[in-house]
Every structure is written in structure tokens, then in C-alpha cells.
């Protein structure tokens, strides 16, 4: 039961997201009825599940929301802006209740009280004093259905026989029957005629059949709605009872599914792609196995082709290996695709955040999201959510001016925050931009000088000043607010983004706004790398950090003091590190003509050249953790396994540039790129 409950609460999050999403669509001017229906369904699903688990407050609240939506549906009127804003707030309260049920965090009672009052007023009827939901005798809520359809008490006969899948998906007939009870007076008869003798009974089969006589003012469609989520997994017939012959329900012949039923309307199909829930660990294991398969495939091919094929079969075998390779690549791509999730799951949490920050700061903000379908690796979602949350909070709290100030500057009172996601150059790029005041460079610089981050005499370019906001301990808020301004903002964002293999950059125009750009790898499991050999060891340089490979010659290497060599790159000089020496594979050695330098750039934009023996190829590699069985190794990000089964180390460029600068390992001061 506990498992089903947590599953329900998980689904609640999805329903809540759908609820909120639909409302936002309506708010942005959508007039699609399906959206209203989707919102209603979401509220309804939450209510249904909540009733099963005895979450009474959640049920009542969801019920009120449902009432308002039902009225809107009946009147064919899309709720107006005020109503939508109220429903959004109501959705936030629902989310609080769900969180309460899951983690036990107490919801904000004043908000609930305010919101339920609003709801009651909106539903047009004072809320009746409610008792326990279970014992609630239903009073039909007067819903205006228009003149042509005055409430009329009618008797319906509902034949209901769940299929095996009905039970298999943890549905409960009692819940549905209670739902019918909410519609009017019911008489329920269980038909046991179909149940075979015990000796022939298949205990996992579904034999029970109910006949319900329902006396209600509701329409057939509304009765059908009670079965909305089980319509595909049960036999269901709803027929009006013949007035002259109030037939004994049990004497009706057993309904046959093939028999066409007059008056039964086609049920609208659910227009959502079907999906299943899979344990993440299973997916990861699958990915691991497929990666192994790809490695073995490469190794086998290499070995067979190296032994030298001869004879008539040679070309056939080569072709077969080609096919195998393509299949393996396809398989790998698809399996990686399983982990992919649209960034929508991140973006859809933001409207609520914006509402909360708006309420807190008294600023008015419109959030516009684009590219929500852009897919990223599931492992990135959590870190991405944290980063985006922080940045949006920051944008509203620091970047955007108060409405009066905006009007004085000739801007509209309502500010714009844009959230944009796209795939660009094999990476996921997320942009967060606002039309606020931009970074106050004088203030940032003054603060940085007062904190000793830069010297007062340093002359910094505007972009360099903007980048100071990523330094630890720098907050430009005049007073520390609840939301941001604890000085742990942007440096935390940068570090968490870097730990995901990403970068964050900022650009700002004074008076016109600020734009943050997050760039992340598509996946954490696979990356493109340049293979390099150093003293017989195989190493991988992440392609994202690699700028170019340069042939090392006498003419382009300069010596400078005792600090080592500089490499001339397009007229500038970049420090060069002998990787063999740096990694402890060899002592100082003479450079030969065959040596190659890899020009790399770290996340802060600092360039260094890595001297290696050879760069045999560029390839896609599967990332394997070194920490899992050992520990973190300085300068090494992870390892990978090559086609021949050997291990190669993946270099951590940021760690290499950092360790160069401060041999003691403590990093101080501001790094400014040349």
C-alpha cells in the first residue's frame, strides 16, 4: 500500500504540472477546449487518488477546483484572467497538500484559508459544512447548464465489469461505485452468475460484474466521467432505465460486449502517448550493457580484421561486421534516448517560483518559456533545476527593477523573463534573459575591491566585471533578502553547472537587461574525446575543451625563465605543459618533431597547451567512474574503455589549469582570462 501511495503522490506531481501547464496555456490566450478538459482531468485524477488514500483535505480542495472547472465546462466559458490566477494559486495549495502527504511538511494555513475562501466565492455557492468524505451524502451542486437542459431526475442502469487489467493496474471498484454515489441515489447489485465453481476458478481472472441503478440529474456523459480512467479496461454500458418497466437489474441477461448498445456514445480516446514507468537503475544497467556490447563489437571487429581475412567469405564477413556496427550504434543511440527527458520538467516548475518571488518582491514579471521539448540526460535534470531556479530568482530579485522605477525608465511595468532551451553544437544551451537594469558594474567592482577580490588599480573590461558575479562571496543586494543575496548565489550556480560538465556565461547591457547562458553536455554517459598517447599511456581530452591541435616545432616553442615553455599560437604565447611529466609518467624529456600540442581552454576561458606524443584519433567514448572503486584522482575526470579493452584516462582540464596556478592546492584571487 505504501508503495502505491508513493506512486500516487508521484503521479500527483505530473497531474499538478499538467494542471498548471493547462492554466498557463489558457492564460496565454489558448481557447482550446481540450486544454480545459485536460485541467479538469488532472484535478479529477488527484481527487480520485486522494480519496483512495484518505487525504481528505486534498480531496475537498480538489473537489472545489473541479466544481469551478465543471461549471466552466458546462457553460462553455473559458475562465477569465482573474479566475485563472486564482486556479493557479489553488494549484499551488494542492501541491502543498501533496508535499505534506509525502514529506510531512506543514502547508501554509493562511494561504490555504485565503485560497479556499476565494474558491468558495467563485464556485458561486457557499460551501456546505462538510463531514468526512466517506460519509458525505451528496447534494447536487446547482450548476447552470443552460435553459435547454434543465435538471431532470432520471434513472440509469450502469453495467460494469472490470477486466483483469483493471485490477492489475491497482484500480478499486469501490472507488468508482462511490463516485457514482456522488452523482445521485444508487442501488448496487453484484452479479455472481458468471463466477465458475471453485474448482474451475482462475484466481487471477476477473469475474465480478456489477449492475448499478442510478437515479440522478446528471447526464450520461457525466456518469461516464466517473469511469474516465478505466474505460479501456472494463466492460461498461450505461442505458436509461425504461420508465414503464423498472426491471429488476439482476434479471437482465448478461451483457455481451459485441452487442451494439444504443445510446452509448463513443468515448473520446486519450490523446497522450502511452508510456511506462521504469526503474532508473534498470535503465542505467541497460546503458552499461549496451556500452559493453559496443566495446566488444569494436574489439571483435578489430581482431578479426587484423588477423587478415582471405577467400570468398572475406567481403561478406566485412559487410556483416559493418551491419553489426550500425546496429550496435543504433541500439546505443536509442538506449541513451531512454534517459533523455525534455527540459519541460525543469521549466514547468518555474511559473510557481516566479509567482512566489513576485509576491515577495512586489515586482510584476511575465515568464516566457521556449524550447521546452529540448531533451537532456535525466541525470542532468536535478542539477539543472537548481541552477535555473537560482538564476531566475536572482534575475527577478536583483536584475528587475520595481514597477515604478521601470515606468520611470520608460519600460512597461511588467518585466519579461525569458527561458529558452535549444540543442546547439552537440550541447544543450539554456538561456535565461531579463529586461531589467543589467549588472550594476560600478557596484560590483566596488564590492569586489572591498572584498579584496581584485585590486583597486586593476583596470577591468566590462565583461570581466560582469563575470565577477560568479566569484564566491559577492552579492550586490543592498540588504540580504529572503530569496537571494546571501552571497552564495552565482558562484554556487557556476560550480554546480561545472560539476555537470557545463559552463555558464553572462552578458549584460546596462539598463536593458542581463542574459545568462548555460551550456551543458547532452549526456553524462558518453562524450566526444580526442585520444592522445603520452609515454605509451592512452589519455582522452574532452573535445569540448579542445580548441586545436598544433604541431610542435623548434620555431614555435619559446622558453621563459624557469617556468617552462611557451607555445606560440597565432602570435600569442600560451604556457605549455608536458603531460608525461605532469602526470608523473616520465621525467623531463626532449621534444621530438613528432610531438603534438593540444590547445585547450578551461571553463574560465584560460588556455594552456598540453604536450603529448601523438593524437591517433577522435572518438566517442563511454564514461566510466574511477571513484566507484577507488577515489578521486587529481587531474583525472574519469576513465573509459577502449576497443581493445584497455583503460584510458579522461583528463580534467579545469583541475590541470587550477593545479598549475597554486601548487599548494588552495585557490585564491580572481582568475581573469588573458
Amino acid at each position, binding site marked *: 500500500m505504501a508503495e502505491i501511495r508513493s506512486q500516487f503522490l508521484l503521479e500527483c506531481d505530473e497531474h499538478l504540472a499538467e494542471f498548471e501547464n493547462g492554466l498557463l496555456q489558457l492564460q496565454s490566450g489558448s481557447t482550446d477546449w481540450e486544454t480545459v478538459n485536460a485541467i479538469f482531468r488532472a484535478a479529477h485524477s488527484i481527487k480520485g487518488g486522494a480519496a483512495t488514500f484518505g487525504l481528505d483535505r486534498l480531496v475537498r480542495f480538489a473537489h472545489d477546483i473541479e466544481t469551478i472547472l465543471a461549471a466552466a465546462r458546462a457553460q462553455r466559458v473559458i475562465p477569465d484572467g482573474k479566475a485563472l490566477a486564482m486556479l493557479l494559486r489553488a494549484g499551488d495549495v494542492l501541491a502543498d497538500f501533496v508535499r505534506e502527504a509525502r514529506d510531512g511538511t506543514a502547508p501554509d494555513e493562511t494561504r490555504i484559508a485565503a485560497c479556499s475562501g476565494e474558491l468558495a466565492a467563485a464556485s458561486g455557492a457557499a460551501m456546505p459544512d462538510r463531514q468526512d468524505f466517506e460519509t458525505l451524502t451528496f447534494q447536487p451542486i446547482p450548476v447552470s447548464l443552460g435553459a435547454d437542459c434543465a435538471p431532470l431526475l432520471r434513472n440509469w442502469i450502469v453495467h460494469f465489469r472490470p477486466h483483469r487489467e483493471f485490477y492489475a493496474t491497482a484500480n478499486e471498484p469501490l472507488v468508482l461505485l462511490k463516485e457514482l454515489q456522488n452523482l445521485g441515489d444508487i442501488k448496487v447489485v453484484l452479479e455472481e452468475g458468471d463466477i465458475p465453481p471453485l474448482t474451475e476458478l482462475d484466481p487471477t481472472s476477473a469475474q465480478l460484474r456489477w449492475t448499478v441503478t442510478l437515479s440522478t440529474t446528471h447526464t450520461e456523459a457525466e456518469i461516464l466521467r466517473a469511469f474516465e480512467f478505466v474505460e479501456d479496461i472494463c466492460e461498461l454500458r450505461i442505458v436509461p432505465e425504461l420508465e414503464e418497466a423498472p426491471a429488476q437489474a439482476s434479471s437482465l441477461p448478461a451483457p455481451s460486449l459485441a452487442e451494439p448498445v444504443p445510446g452509448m456514445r463513443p468515448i473520446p480516446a486519450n490523446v497522450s502517448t502511452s508510456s511506462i514507468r521504469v526503474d532508473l537503475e534498470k535503465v542505467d544497467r541497460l546503458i552499461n550493457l549496451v556500452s559493453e556490447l559496443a566495446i566488444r563489437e569494436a574489439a571483435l571487429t578489430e581482431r578479426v580484421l587484423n588477423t587478415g581475412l582471405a577467400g570468398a567469405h572475406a567481403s561478406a564477413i566485412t559487410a556483416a561486421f559493418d551491419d553489426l556496427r550500425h546496429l550496435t550504434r543504433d541500439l546505443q543511440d536509442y538506449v541513451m534516448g531512454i534517459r533523455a527527458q525534455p527540459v519541460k520538467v525543469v521549466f514547468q516548475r518555474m511559473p510557481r517560483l516566479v509567482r512566489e518571488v513576485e509576491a515577495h518582491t512586489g515586482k510584476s514579471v511575465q515568464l516566457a518559456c521556449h524550447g521546452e521539448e529540448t531533451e537532456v540526460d535525466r541525470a542532468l535534470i536535478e542539477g539543472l533545476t537548481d541552477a535555473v531556479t537560482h538564476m531566475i530568482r536572482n534575475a527577478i530579485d536583483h536584475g528587475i527593477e520595481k514597477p515604478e522605477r521601470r515606468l520611470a525608465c520608460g519600460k512597461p511595468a511588467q518585466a519579461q523573463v525569458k527561458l529558452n532551451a535549444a540543442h546547439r553544437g552537440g550541447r544543450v544551451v539554456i538561456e535565461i534573459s531579463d529586461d531589467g537594469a543589467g549588472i550594476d558594474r560600478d557596484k560590483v567592482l566596488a564590492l569586489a575591491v572591498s572584498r579584496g577580490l581584485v585590486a583597486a588599480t586593476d583596470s577591468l573590461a566590462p565583461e570581466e566585471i560582469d563575470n565577477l558575479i560568479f566569484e564566491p562571496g559577492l552579492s550586490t543586494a543592498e540588504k540580504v533578502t529572503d530569496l537571494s543575496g546571501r552571497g552564495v548565489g552565482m558562484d554556487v550556480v557556476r560550480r554546480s553547472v561545472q560539476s555537470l560538465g557545463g559552463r555558464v556565461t553572462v552578458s549584460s547591457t546596462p539598463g536593458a537587461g542581463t542574459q545568462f547562458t548555460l551550456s551543458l553536455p547532452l549526456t553524462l554517459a558518453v562524450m566526444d574525446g580526442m585520444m592522445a598517447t603520452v609515454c605509451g599511456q592512452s589519455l582522452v581530452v574532452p573535445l569540448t575543451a579542445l580548441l586545436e591541435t598544433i604541431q610542435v616545432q623548434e620555431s614555435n616553442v619559446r622558453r621563459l625563465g624557469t617556468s617552462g615553455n611557451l607555445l606560440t599560437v597565432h602570435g600569442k604565447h600560451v604556457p605549455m605543459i608536458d603531460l608525461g611529466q*605532469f*602526470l608523473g609518467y616520465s621525467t623531463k624529456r626532449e621534444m621530438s618533431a613528432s610531438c603534438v600540442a593540444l590547445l585547450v581552454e578551461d571553463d574560465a576561458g584560460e588556455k594552456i597547451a598540453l604536450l603529448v606524443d601523438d593524437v591517433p584519433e577522435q572518438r566517442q567514448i563511454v564514461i566510466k567512474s574511477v571513484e566507484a572503486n*577507488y577515489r578521486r584522482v587529481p587531474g583525472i575526470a574519469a576513465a573509459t574503455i577502449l576497443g581493445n579493452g584497455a583503460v584510458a584516462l579522461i583528463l580534467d582540464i579545469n583541475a590541470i589549469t587550477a593545479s598549475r596556478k597554486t601548487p599548494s592546492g588552495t585557490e585564491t584571487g580572481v582568475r581573469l582570462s588573458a
Partner: protein
Amino acid sequence: MHNLAGQTLRAETWMPKEVLVCRIHGQEFCVDVGSVKEIRGWAPTALLPHSPAYLRGIINLRGTVLPIVDMAARLDFPAVIPSPQSAVIVVLIGKKQVGLLVDAVCDIIEVTADALEATPQLACDTVQNLVVTLINSDDRLIGLLDLDRLLPEIDAGDA
């Protein structure tokens, strides 16, 4: 460092029933059979920078990265010179799998209480620290290795 009483206590509280005996620099040592996952032949490793001298590097164990500890070097002997007899004993230490490179794997023996002999005070701290107890039977002297103390930095990393 560790007094005798402490060593005896450790031996009493944790005692494997069977141990896998291996040869390291002509001497016999053993590990709890329960910790052993598999035994493999030697394969060349990828060298890890900034690592202790006894860490021979990492190898690919069916898709996971397995660190290889040179047991001779770990016990302050000269490093193992890989030969066809050399073996890698894959053991589980906590949640981590580690390969132990030894000169040869000998046999599996049952441990009886009367064969146990507390490790005396030794001049070499490394060996003192790693050998929980001695197994003295059939004219053999076998040092039982404490796997938990094999890789000090793994513990540090977990903490």
C-alpha cells in the same frame, strides 16, 4: 601503534572460516574467502597519476574500472614482477572492488581456532598494521590481511 591486546581483540571479533592463501615475495598471506569475488590473470594497467607507489593502475573488469594494488609493494617488498603465475585477486572492500596483484595463488584452507596466533610486535609498522593475525598450521605461517586497512585513502574518501 597497535598494542597486542588490540590485535587479539580484532582477531577474536572477526574471524573468517576459510581463507584464500597467496604468495607474496616468497611469503604466504591470506584473505577471507568471503571477500573474494574472482581471480584473474595479470593484464597491463593504465597508470594513475598522483597515486601511491603500490597502486599499479587501473584495468577494465567487464566494463568497470578496477584499481590494482601491488601487494608486494604494499607490504614494503619490491614490486611484483608480473609472470604467468601472477594473479589478481578481486576482492570487495566495503562497496568497492579492488584487485590485489600477488605472485601466485596457492590454496584455500579452513581456519581453526587453535591455529590462530596473535601477530607479535613487529619492527615494520606497515606489516603490523595490515596483518590481523597469524595462522600457524601444518608448518605454515600465513598472515591474514585486513582488507579494510589496505587502501587508507579509500576510507578517507568515504568518510
